[in-house]
């Protein structure tokens, strides 16, 4: 194990622990104690209290409910939709030689691919955040709905990247070699292309999607009005809103806690996404010697 891997693992564990703790904590409306308002961290309240005297520690954890599972939902939707559509639209290996499908079958497949390709390209033209706000304005601000919509919108972006990568790999000679040996298309596409070559790309996208869901949820509940999670349920966004008035009177602490939580989580996910998408044992290019035989088939 290298040091970056250990750090990645530890930070991931912290993130998961926050999410799971948020789900497990039994949190009710209780806890308003005006006498303890605006306390700094102490033995009784590890992270201090807000302007209503509520303990900030359980609130900051419970707030993860707004994005933890919805983000997971978004990732699952994006992964299933994006990878399958992208793989379908991208995998068209060269067919030369004796093996040929009937012409009509090829035409049909090509047409289907073109349609999917177009469908993957279209959502890129939509501003994602605005689309989510508009859709949620029509259907209601449920965290899971936000997650689902984000997942579908993100699936197009992921799918397009997967499509390009699969398309590139499908024209590689090792795919031709594997096909000529009679390996099944499922193994070639699933193992040789998606698992070995697209996995880092997919993981990076999904991790970034998760942090996108956090930002959407936080931003929505930060906007005053009927958006996002409403008081008394906590969210990092509405905790920030609630901390605004005390901040004006010099009590900065209640705004520090959600800010640190947001920055920590989003930066952590972005960093993790980049780490996970790097091959773990990349060699310096110098160790590899250049190609040796340069004559081609033609």
């Amino acid at each position: 194990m290298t040091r970056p891997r250990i750090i990645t693992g530890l930070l991931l564990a912290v993130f998961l622990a926050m999410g799971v703790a948020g789900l497990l904590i039994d949190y009710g409306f209780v806890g308003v104690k005006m006498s303890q308002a605006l306390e700094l961290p102490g033995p009784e309240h590890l992270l201090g209290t807000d302007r209503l005297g509520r303990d900030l520690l359980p609130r900051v954890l419970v707030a993860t409910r707004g994005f933890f599972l919805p983000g997971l939902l978004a990732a699952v939707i994006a992964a299933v939709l994006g990878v399958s559509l992208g793989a379908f639209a991208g995998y068209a290996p060269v067919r030369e030689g004796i093996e040929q499908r009937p012409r009509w079958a090829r035409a049909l497949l090509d047409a289907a691919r073109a349609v999917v390709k177009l469908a993957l390209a279209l959502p890129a033209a939509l501003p994602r955040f605005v689309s989510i706000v508009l859709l949620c304005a029509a259907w209601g601000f449920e965290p899971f709905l936000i997650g689902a919509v984000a997942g579908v919108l993100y699936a197009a972006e992921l799918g397009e990247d997967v499509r390009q990568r699969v398309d590139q790999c499908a024209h590689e000679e090792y795919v031709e070699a594997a096909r000529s040996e009679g390996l099944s298309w499922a193994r070639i596409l699933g193992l040789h292309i998606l698992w070995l070559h697209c996995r880092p790309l997919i993981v990076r996208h999904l991790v970034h999607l998760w942090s996108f869901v956090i930002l959407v949820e936080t931003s929505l509940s930060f906007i005053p009005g009927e958006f996002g999670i409403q008081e008394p349920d906590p969210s990092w966004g509405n905790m920030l809103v609630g901390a605004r008035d005390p901040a004006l009177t010099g009590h900065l602490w209640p705004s520090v806690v959600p800010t640190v939580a947001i920055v920590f989580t989003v930066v952590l996910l972005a960093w993790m996404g980049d780490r996970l998408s790097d091959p773990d044992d990349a060699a310096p290019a110098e160790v590899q010697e250049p190609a040796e035989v340069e004559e081609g088939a033609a």
Partner: protein
Amino acid sequence: MISTADLTTDDPALEPMDAGSLAPSPARGTAVLEVDGLTTRFEVGGRLVTAVDRVSLTVQPGEIVAIVGESGSGKSVLLQSILGLVRGRPGVVSGSVTLRVGEQVIEPFSGIEQAVRGRAAPRRWLATVERRFAGVRGTGVGLVLQNGRAALDPFWTVGRQLMAALTDKGGAKPTLQEAYAWLERLGFDHPEVIAAAHPHELSGGMAQRAMLAVVLAREPKLLFLDEITTGLDVSLQASVLKLLRRLHQQVGFSALLITHDLGIARGISQRTVIMRRGRVVQAGDTEALFERRLRLDPYTRELLEQGQVEAMERTDLIEDLHLDAPAARGPLAEADAVVKRFGAGMVALDQVSVAIQGGECVALVGESGSGKTTLSRILVGLLKADAGKVAFDGQALAGLGSRGVDAFRRRRTILFQNPYTSLNPEMRAEEVVAEALVLYRDISPQVARDAAEALLEETHLGHRAKQRLALLSGGERRRVGLVRAMQSNADLIVLDEPTAGLDAVHRRDVAQMIWGCRSHKPDRALVIVSHDLGFVSQVADRIVVLYRGTVVEDVSVNDFLNQGTTHHPYTQLLWDASRYVAGVQPNMTMIPARRSDLSEAPPLAPGSAGCLFRNRCPIYLGAEDRWSRCATERPPLVTLSSRRKIACHGVEHDRT
């Protein structure tokens, strides 16, 4: 991240070098290049790998020193280390290099130990090394790489690059005449045409010579030549080596030549250094080495023994196989009057007929562009012939239904030529082999993985089993691919260039694998595509020589090796070239220069009238009147005996 602990625990296998056999040559202080105890390391997957291990060597003025080693032995990294071009971390960690070029004396790594102090060298160290090299690279030392076409600037004409080189050299403003003079020195007859060409317009051999011209024009005192002939076919290798020899006599540079081929070292170098696994195992005078006047390291001895092309001992095993081969059945794979065109005008194969019996091992031999790879791909159905009939086991490939195609696919296997693109670089070596075992043997993945590891161990690749292919060298990848292909139980196995870039010891491994693969299933047919006549005459039963898309000779190996046999002049040329490259034959009687300069008459296109080989043919050239038939009439493939067919008016004439 590297902890100090990683650096201090050295590989336990390391032992102090044998000082006796590696004594530096006496004239220290005048040497152009002195390397002392150079060590280069890389961090790979959190582990430190020592790529170059305490290497010491010297190059005297006017001397060519060859570094010989298998691919992955660290010879290229050594060269990059000397030139300060290593970019992996931590890179050079100890030792010293002294370059004496003209008046300048450069020690790029002096102080490296202090800078490194048991940890990775700081990044600013690279800047220090860069600064010390300022003004030396190019004019003081020159570097010629394996792929000339890739090393030249694709946007500049050769002439412009030459002029830039001449300007770098300093002095008076260069003239075009000087540039042309350099091209002429490199054997181009019409330099103005070459000077106006962009690198992509040149063939591989021409680009290699153009690159040599650009490097030599700066008149470096010391040349670094990194596998400069590896990508070329055997006749081009011979002509480039010949040229280099002549230039060395004319210009008198010193050079450090890197090669995997001991024969090349023999032909051109004064001293030879043999490297294995990052260490120098043998160093000494080249002649003394070949005459075995030195105390030889076991690896060197093995290399020397395997490298002898004359020693064509074929095992009895093969003879037995050959006799037992059931010849009564029809051919297993058959191509009849096959034509294949690429694009508009390019004819790759022109009326080629080959029949391969079960149990037979047939070699397809020829230069690049002769159509041998195309023919092999047509035989296994990867390409479709434009005309003619291709059949497998009596059935035409064109008429196979989808079920027939599936059945056919299981009955044949092909090892692709390029090990970089034809194997998934993200897979681990053992996975590559295990996948084939699961596919061919129908065993569980767990069993396959253990078996794969054992197979890799047998072929000296055990230490690579767990690594991704992206980390393996080209030669190692080729061997992994070969191990994979050999697991097939197919009736027809096609191996495309199985030995390209491998040293003599590994060529021997490949030959053994091929023998084993045949004895395992005696009625199996093998097709070997290669330009190495020496190798194929050891493993094949029959040799089919192709020239520009036509078969010029089809001969059994016994007849081929028989001294008395008259061959097609092209076969003779290939044979001479392979012996010249192997260092066995010091002089080439025939000039193998391929007339493919842009300036020369273009190579005769397949489909044109007459013999395609006549513009390189020693029988025809100089006696055009006598052989007027050659210019008008394509020589047919005439059956001389049951084991020999030749397409040459000259040979046919001699017989009658």
